[in-house]
Structure formats: structure tokens, C-alpha cells
């Protein structure tokens, strides 16, 4: 019996299958990466430091992506409601890179806190960060900013009627 001839279309269909499977594997890899981000955001413990009766200080370090920033915002807003916070200080001195998305996340956090009647101050803005925010064209008109945490603390305390006076 003569051997069965290979159909010319069988190779093409195999290639198509391989391309499809590669695509599926790529999309699954992306899904896994997203899930890893979500897991790291869920594990991420935000230090919420209550430095006075109605003043909350949040030091942000590392990177700030959309998943992490959403969690930061939710944690802050719930804390504002529970602890009756009137002034929020976000220190971004520990943020590695402040790009347009980080700036947009900060603006969103500030807007959300304003909706809850809480004043927000962003500290740790170095001249370089200020320059990059201006160059990126991010509207930060609704946010009060300071260079150092000390300046932010002074502003925060004065907002609740406390004046810091040195003893000497």
C-alpha cells in the first residue's frame, strides 16, 4: 500500500495552531503579571501615621502604580472617615520616579480627600520633581505642596490651629 501523501494544508494549520497557542501563552503571562501586581498591592501595608488628633501622615516609598495608588486612596479615605482626619500629609520623598502617572495619582488622591472635607499637603517635592511635574503639564492647582516634611508639618498644624514654637 503506498504511503499516505501529506496534505499541503496540514503544515499551515499546524503553524496557525502554534501561533494561536503562543498568543494564548502571552496573554496568560500578562494575566499572571497583573495578578502578581494585585497580590503585591494587597500585601502592601501602608503606614498611616496619626501625628495629631486630626492630622494623618502617609510616607510613600518605592513605586506608585495604578493598583497600588487605588489601594492607597481607599485606605486613606476610610481612615479619614474613621479617625475624623482634617489634614492629610503625603510625603513622596521616598518615591523613586515621579512621572505623569504618579502625579496624576497624587492629584486624584488629593481630589478625593477634598471631597471628604480634608485638606491635603504633598511634601518631599524636590526642585527636580517640581521641574518634571511642570514639564509634564500636570494640573496640580488643587494641591498644596512643600519641599520638606517639616514645612508640611508646620502647615498641617497651623491648619488645625496649632503653632510650633521652638523652646530656645
Amino acid at each position, binding site marked *: 500500500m503506498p504511503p499516505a501523501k501529506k496534505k499541503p494544508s496540514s503544515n499551515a494549520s499546524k503553524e496557525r495552531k502554534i501561533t494561536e497557542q503562543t498568543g494564548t501563552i502571552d496573554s496568560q503571562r500578562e494575566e499572571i503579571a497583573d495578578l502578581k501586581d494585585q497580590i503585591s498591592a494587597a500585601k502592601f501595608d501602608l503606614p498611616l501615621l496619626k501625628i495629631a488628633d486630626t492630622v494623618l501622615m502617609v510616607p510613600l516609598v518605592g513605586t506608585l502604580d495604578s493598583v497600588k495608588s487605588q489601594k492607597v486612596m481607599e485606605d486613606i479615605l476610610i481612615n479619614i472617615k474613621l479617625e*475624623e482626619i482634617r489634614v492629610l500629609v503625603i510625603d513622596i520623598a521616598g518615591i523613586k520616579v515621579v512621572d505623569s502617572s504618579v502625579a496624576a495619582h497624587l492629584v486624584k488622591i488629593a*481630589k478625593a480627600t477634598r471631597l471628604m*472635607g480634608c485638606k491635603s499637603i504633598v511634601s518631599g517635592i524636590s526642585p527636580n520633581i517640581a521641574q518634571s511635574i511642570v514639564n509634564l503639564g500636570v494640573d496640580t492647582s488643587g494641591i498644596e505642596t512643600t519641599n520638606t516634611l517639616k514645612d508640611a508639618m508646620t502647615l498641617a498644624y497651623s491648619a488645625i490651629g496649632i503653632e510650633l514654637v521652638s523652646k530656645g
Partner: protein
Amino acid sequence: MLSQVFIVKQTVIVQLNVEDFSFPRFGHDLAVEIQRKRCKQVIFDMSSSKTLSSLELSQLEQVIENLRLNGIKARVCGIHPISAALLVHFKYDFNNIEFSLHVDAALDAFASR
């Protein structure tokens, strides 16, 4: 009007029912009611409405603008954290509205002026 209205320290407190926005003359009727009570400031307490849409908040902004034209100062308080987190994703800034955490904070803010 479905919203409930109280007076504390010469300030009208409106426990807002967002269904009132469906009445086209709500802002006008509220301004008349507040002037009849001889008050000059009003607090909109949103604590009873857990979910607040951007449309409802922009309708409230119009009501507040109506009141401002009538010489009445307004503040909004009691926005739920979930609503606040959702509202920031919309393009509106609500820069013309002043917000407080709760009614007491809003009363304090009026008193400190």
C-alpha cells in the same frame, strides 16, 4: 421635597435625598425656604446616600450656585469614602463646592469664618 430640613445655629441642614434633583425647581424652592427661615447658610448632608454619582454631584453644584446667587453660603458634608474614590475618576473638579467631613465640621467651618 423629599429631603429633610433642620435648623441648627441659624444654619439650615438639608439631609439630602438625591431624588429631589428630579424636581426642576428644587434649587429655587430650597432658596425660598431658606430665606423664609431667615438663614444665610446651608449644609447639605450626604451621609444618607452611600453612592453618589458625578451627575448628582454636578446637579448639587447647580443648586449651590443657585443658592450663592441668592446670597446663601453652602457646604457639602458626609460624602462616603467609596463615592469619593469613584468621583475622582470623572473630569469634574467641583472647585465651586466646599466640603466637610460631617455636619459638626461644616458648622465649625461656618463659625470660623
